[in-house]
């Protein structure tokens, strides 16, 4: 088997193991159990770290977008989300439009 396919197979099994281990551990616990509350806080914090890094210190293709454009995209999305009372789709569109607009203005 080619190394790329073997790596994919092993990774798929590892992902099932991670998800399965979490389900097994949590199976007997209620949502308000301290361990569940801790895991929820860690998961939300991981997501916040992911977003922060994607905006302030991204890698890959997103790193080619200038920081002001990334910040404009985030702020426009959040502002639209607040103004439109929690409507996700238009807020997402507003954020992406702002990112593209500021990027075009900066010539980046």
């Amino acid at each position, binding site marked *: 088997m080619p190394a790329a396919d073997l790596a994919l197979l092993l990774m798929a099994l590892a992902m099932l193991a991670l*998800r399965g281990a979490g389900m097994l551990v949590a199976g007997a616990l209620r949502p308000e159990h301290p361990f569940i509350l801790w895991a929820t806080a860690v*998961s939300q914090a*991981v997501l916040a770290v*992911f977003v922060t890094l994607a905006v302030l210190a991204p890698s890959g293709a997103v790193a080619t*977008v200038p920081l002001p454009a990334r910040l404009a995209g985030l702020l426009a999305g959040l502002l639209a989300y607040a103004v439109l009372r929690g409507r996700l789709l238009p807020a997402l569109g507003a954020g992406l439009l702002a*990112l593209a607009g500021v990027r075009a203005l900066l010539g980046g």
Partner: protein
Amino acid sequence: MSRLAPSSPLAALRPGAATAFGAPAIAMGATFLAFGAAVREGGLGLPWALGAALLIYGMPGQLILLQFAGAGAAGGVAPAVLGAAAANARFLPMAVALTPWLGNRASRWLALPFIAITPWAAAMRALPGLPQPARLPWFLGFALVSWSIAGLATAVGHWLAPLLDPALMAALLFANPLYFALLLAAGLGQPASRRAVLAGVLAAPVALLLPPAWGLLAAGLLGGTAAFLLGLRHARR
């Protein structure tokens, strides 16, 4: 065409499925479209792209594995898999947090392959407000639509790769963190969520000091644990 009876299993999936068609579909579709294009640029075929998208189903790990596989699979399989698995290690706490909301029946294991950021974040927002019998079907409905969109978008991205310019790829990839930022903003009204999000933002620089594969989880563990302990202290007052 006859309408599904309200009590049929498929009808029970419908509310979650309907939620997934919207902002989640756009964010998911954009990101996986860019991933499909990146796989083709890495010289790998559509089966590999679909396998990575649907069986790993977690973008940071997918991208790390693609870096390895697209570079001629140099450097050894074990370090590549370990690094990619570490980048997706958040699935463990996410599965722990989600499972109690899915009920006690064995059928909750149907959710196993779908535990990923997008379904998790949407479910943690929706499930507490639903009656217990509706929670697992809601999650499965949402997850099946998201998973299908991920696969479809990956295939389209792989096919369209020669036509996508780098600026468009970057904007597509940014849709995902922006969507997550909006989901996090939606939870800021709850003190526990607010603490976790703020602690995560403050802990983010820690991720830059560590190898990329480990940084995300380490910073999240630090921020999340600090937020949890602050919450305990607050509750005791």
